[in-house]
């Protein structure tokens, strides 16, 4: 629901009527084609599933997913005009991504999330999802260590290093974040060169 309200707020931005007016003006200005002229259809406007549907999470357990959501929110909080990881539905996306990953990567996330929850229970006698900002920051202490190319041995530290990168990328590259950057409109253009499969 939180995301839907966010998208609805974006859709209410004044850019939408302006765009509609431009389209109407273009239609009025275009000369009428001859009756027998072949007219190429206008390019159709497609979106992606994230705009019109909700993801189905199925990899992480309910507890792991709750821990992941809290972690995502800490790593990439929302800012004014800039959706954070939760608005960008990164926990749901990570559920999909890690569910598709090789066993070793899955294990990193599973053991890391379980470890984070265990540390929270051990130190604060509460679930990670219920920790306050100070308590959570204590548990995320490995992220304040100097970065090393060698992954940490500790499962929680290892998860945090991976999550810091993946959650950040998944948020920046989300539909929601890009839509916000485009002023509430479906973002257009930009991006990188994508190589199509050649058959």
């Amino acid at each position, binding site marked *: 629901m939180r995301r839907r309200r966010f998208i609805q707020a974006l859709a209410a931005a004044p850019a939408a009527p302006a765009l509609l007016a431009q389209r109407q003006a273009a239609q009025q200005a275009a000369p009428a084609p001859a009756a027998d002229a072949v007219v190429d259809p206008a390019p159709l406007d497609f979106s*992606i599933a994230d705009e019109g549907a909700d993801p189905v999470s199925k990899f992480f357990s309910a507890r792991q997913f709750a821990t992941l959501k809290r972690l995502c929110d800490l790593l990439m909080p929302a*800012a004014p005009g800039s959706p954070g990881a939760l608005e960008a539905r990164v926990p749901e996306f990570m559920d999909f991504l890690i569910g598709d990953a090789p066993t070793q990567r899955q294990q990193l996330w599973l053991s890391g999330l379980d470890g984070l929850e265990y540390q929270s229970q051990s130190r604060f006698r509460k679930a990670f999802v219920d920790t306050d900002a100070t308590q959570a920051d204590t548990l*995320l202490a490995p992220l304040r260590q100097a*970065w090393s190319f060698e992954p940490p041995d500790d499962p929680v530290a290892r998860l945090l290093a991976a999550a810091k990168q993946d959650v950040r990328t998944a948020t920046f*590259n989300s539909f929601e974040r890009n839509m916000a950057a485009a002023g509430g409109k479906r973002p257009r253009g930009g*991006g990188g060169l994508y190589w199509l499969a050649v058959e």
Partner: protein
Amino acid sequence: MAATNYDVLIIGSGASGGMAAYTLTKKGIKCLMLDAGPPVDFQNNHVTKPAWQLPYRGLGNPARLPHVIQATEYDANQWVDEKQVPYTHDPNSPFNWVRVRYVGGKSLFWSRMSFRLSDYEFKAKDYDGFGDNWPISLADLAPYYDQVEPIFRVRGRKEGLKQLPDGNFIEDTTPWSPAVQKFIGEANKRNIPVTKMRSSLGRGQLASSLNLLLPDALATGNLTIIPDAVVRDITVDTNTGRVTGANFLDRHSRREMHAKAKVVVLGASCLESTRILLNSGIANSSGALGHYLHDQFYITQSVQAVMPEVRDKTAPAGYASGGGYIPRFRNLQSKEKDFLRGYAFDFSAGSTPDAKFFPLYGKALDDALDAHRGAGFSGTCMGSVLPRFENHVRINKDVTDAWGIPVLHIQARYGSNESNMAKDAINTMAELCKACGWEVLARHDQPFPPGYSIHEVGTCRMGDSPKTSVLNKWNQSWDIKNLFVVDGSSFVTAGSQNPTMTILSLSMRASEYLAEQMRKNEL
């Protein structure tokens, strides 16, 4: 219609195969070229896509291309599918075999860094006693570098360094930025040279066989290219011992065909050429085929530093931009370190350090990244790897690819020479950064697994003796006179320079020799 009788069958269409076709067809020699991949329309085979439209949000399919560390979700389709063309290795000795199967091969996607080897490589044994010399010297190859560099339009600056011979360059007249000047000053105090990058400009979007070599070859009317032709083995006349052509399968239908020619030129890329020879059971009286696999070890972002004078947008525009190249400087005059040979760096100033380097998260991380925008300095280390007999490939008959062709088993690992070299390289770069007053955020002295540089060479090496090498000094099989191998597999020692210019030059040289031998009816 009966198949045409071709003079030369060229297997592979990348830098080496393309150059063979370019050279031979201009001399009136009828060539048939087979490539395992499809033709690619470079303009239309890619589209601009925002990352939010990608199924994995730019993070990539986590189950695809486990060995291609450099693959992104954007370019995943350009690499060979490892499930379709697998290979095996010891779990404790990973090798990242990164391949491209399109007409044009890896020359479609290479980094364009364009260097000559020096006699420190061609005559390496004379300098340090390790391994073997090449059977040729720089003087033998220089006339071919001279011809190749204008075709690829190599831009560079002449520096007069023996270890990095000058070339036939388009002069690079761009100035150094102040930050790079500061770095050069500290390097020169330590007798470390810094040069401009030497890079192929090519034409249009490409510096590839596809646009620089194959069009000219086709224009002669002497070249026929068959894409989607997956070569299984080379055929031999058991009476004469000469090669007669190659068996191949259509990539789509798997229909088996045989291509016939008077001469076979292999340019299928280092390990694919060797795989074809091993599967053919030929050209190995020396026992050296498949051995002496080496490359350059790479450590990208080996040192990541921050320039405080650029932080918080305090530096004037253009203060920190551009980059350069540090050619090998170790062990040139005498043995000075606990390793043989040396390493190179390419470096750049003015980037923004990756988020992972900052010990922060959340809003504090965003603030730090904003403050350090354009304040980064980083270097990639490229180290010479010793060619050792024990680093080798062989056929694994228990595993086949999608066309039923047995795959390679790759057995390669770096040793103490490489690890000692990497430590010295990163210590040196970190010291230079600190001398500039820059803060070192992270340093990494462990090379990525062998193969990562995509500069694998050796396994079908040249030499002075048929007892210790597969090819003579003309890239011609010692065992089979009408068989040539013109790609990176023929290398004896790679050095720390990127190999493409040398591969192109060797192929041109071998092809000119081959043409002359054909003209004299001596093949």
